[in-house]
């Protein structure tokens, strides 16, 4: 004798089509009419893409280490940043520059980090956000811990973390979902599904219909949105952040997008990915559709676009100069590797630090 004890569904939300037209004028959220906000976010998306191009150029000319591009993820990333308050806490993976720029992280800091200098992680703002997190999915548990801290301290703050389609296979992500469920944490977990984990396609992570449904493991509300549609991303994030702040617990949002670049500058995606797939993805990319939409609503025009382009290029160049100046003229000394290990340097490290000073130039930057 069977009785159904639990039922679930995963809904997919999209408002803006690749052609820049609203899919259904009756059901669009009000933010689709908030042109001022959309314009601001559009600008940040363009700025982020401009930054990306510069960073890759720096890497190609030997001025930056391995860099993880955010090309194609701009809507998802910017929406994440835009939905959060300053006092909320972001636990990024490694390519969410759009979210971080919105929150105040400086471009020169991003460059410092990928340029091999820890000072990039010392964000001038926001002081409490987590640093980039290379061990994939671990950041989800740090965010869960932050959410727990806010809950325990009765602060109306929300923690937000991001994981990739690849990272969603890791136990850490699922333990974070479980924790969020157990304690009703003010936590938003975003799966930025860009279809690839380096060379491994989404289909190899598992055969489930969605990645959003991982949230069902913990009974969390779980939805999917078009990750190239800024309006859908922001609408979902707003909703999830509000629910979390209101004490209603956690949310899982899968944002469907596409990694238009190589995985990082150390990767060559042509080895494993058909050109047609990439070409097709370009048709759906997030910037163009938002621009078209804004233009169609008389909220943007070609003149503004040109002005923006110039502004972005200049702004990014300044950040690059700042970065290059700092690493050239104010590099961290060898002792910098000791000075932040502990609040107070233990005797053994003090000894090693003194020794290291005898070899300040050894094995330098190679």
């Amino acid at each position, binding site marked *: 004798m069977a009785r159904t004890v639990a039922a679930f569904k995963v809904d997919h939300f999209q408002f803006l089509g690749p052609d820049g037209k609203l899919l259904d004028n009756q059901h669009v959220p009000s933010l689709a009419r908030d042109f001022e906000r959309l314009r601001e976010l559009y600008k940040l998306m363009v700025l982020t893409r401009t930054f990306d191009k510069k960073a890759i150029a720096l890497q190609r000319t030997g001025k930056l280490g391995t860099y993880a591009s955010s090309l194609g993820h701009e809507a998802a990333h910017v929406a994440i940043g835009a939905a959060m308050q300053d006092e909320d*806490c972001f*636990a990024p993976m490694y390519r969410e520059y759009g979210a971080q720029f919105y929150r105040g992280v400086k471009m020169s800091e991003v460059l410092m980090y990928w340029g091999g200098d*820890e*000072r990039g*992680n*010392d*964000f001038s703002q926001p*002081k*409490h956000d*987590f*640093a980039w997190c290379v*061990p994939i999915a*671990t950041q*989800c*548990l*740090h*965010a*869960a*811990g*932050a*959410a*727990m*801290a*806010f809950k*325990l*301290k009765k602060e109306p703050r929300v*923690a937000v973390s991001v994981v990739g389609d690849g990272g969603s296979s890791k*136990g*850490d992500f699922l*333990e*974070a979902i*479980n*924790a969020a469920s*157990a304690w009703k944490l003010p936590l938003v977990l975003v799966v930025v599904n860009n279809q690839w984990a380096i060379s491994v396609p989404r289909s190899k992570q598992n055969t489930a219909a969605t990645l959003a449904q991982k949230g069902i493991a913990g009974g969390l509300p779980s939805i999917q949105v078009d990750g190239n549609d800024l309006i859908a991303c922001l609408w979902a994030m707003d909703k999830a952040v509000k629910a979390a702040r209101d004490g209603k617990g956690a949310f899982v949002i899968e944002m469907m997008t596409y990694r238009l670049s190589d995985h990082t500058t150390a990767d060559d995606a042509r080895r494993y990915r058909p050109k047609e797939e990439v070409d097709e993805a370009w048709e759906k990319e997030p910037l163009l559709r938002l621009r078209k939409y804004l233009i169609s609503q008389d909220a943007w025009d070609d003149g503004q676009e040109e002005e923006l382009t110039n502004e972005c290029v200049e702004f990014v160049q300044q950040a690059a100069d700042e970065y290059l100046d700092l690493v050239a003229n104010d590099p961290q000394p060898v002792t910098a*590797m000791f000075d*932040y*290990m*502990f*609040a107070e340097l*233990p*005797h*053994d*490290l003090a000894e090693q630090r003194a020794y290291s000073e005898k070899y300040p130039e050894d094995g330098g930057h190679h």
Partner: protein
Amino acid sequence: MAQITLIEGITLALARAMEEDDSVIVLGEDVGVNGGVFRATAGLQSRFGDERVIDTPLAEVMIAGMSVGMAAQGIKPVAEAQFCGFTMPMVDHLMCHAGRMRNRTRGRLSCPMVLRFPSGGGIHAPEHHSESPEALYAHMPGIRVVIPSSPSRAYGLLLAAIRDPDPVVFMEPKRIYRWQREEVIDDGEELPLDVCYTLRDGNDLTLVTWGAMIKETLQAADELEKQGISVEVIDVATISPLDMDTIYESASRTGRCVIIQEAPRHCSVASEIAAGLADAGIWNLHAPVKRVCGYDTVMPLYRNEMKYMPSVRRIVDAAQQVLEVS
């Protein structure tokens, strides 16, 4: 003043730390109503509430990862792992995050967390309940490792560990949880996290150990004293950073040193101490530095566990070997 056991010293320090700092919380499996499987957190939940003494789901990665996250955001988590063997899934968050948070962010964020757990064998427990993994944690940069071996040191060192602004792995020698009673004054006095304790002075030989092995080591010292040998016994207590100065000083006086540990020998804490002696300490040595350790095998199930661990006789034999040398 009450005479208390080592584990009662732990409980006392936890209560004290929670009393004096609202941001201190305790979390782990069964730490709440049950008071922990060894009763280390007994009474804390009824005293401090279930928002500060938190039973977690059964997920060690989560406990470690969330502790890192909380610690970076203004809470001071004192996480309990139920047994040493179950800390292995936590290694990732300790190594890759807890020990790096401050350094990674140039001091912007930090990770003042404690991971405490019962360690070592000898209580007839099932598989995976009896390991001594201190060397793994001691090898990780950015992590302090502490192992108390008396009620008062348990109290003072745990207080210090909780107050410390950086992550501490606090390993509790479960075999001696209830071995000895000692008067411990609950005055909030902490002990330094970087010094050894000389438990017994002597001139002929230095025995260096920590944790539950102080039991056999002190017994061995007794036996040797009966043979007219003057034995110094050092309890390392703080495994990382290691107070080699105290050990150098003693070994340079006695010229002879045996290190005793329960853990396997290969790449261990005993090896680290011996290596220090082979370097800065070598001129004063009159004999080889011997290590008496658990074998480099899996800790056996309980019927043979005491055969695995250094016995008094093995310690005495090693001591006599280094004493024979003239």
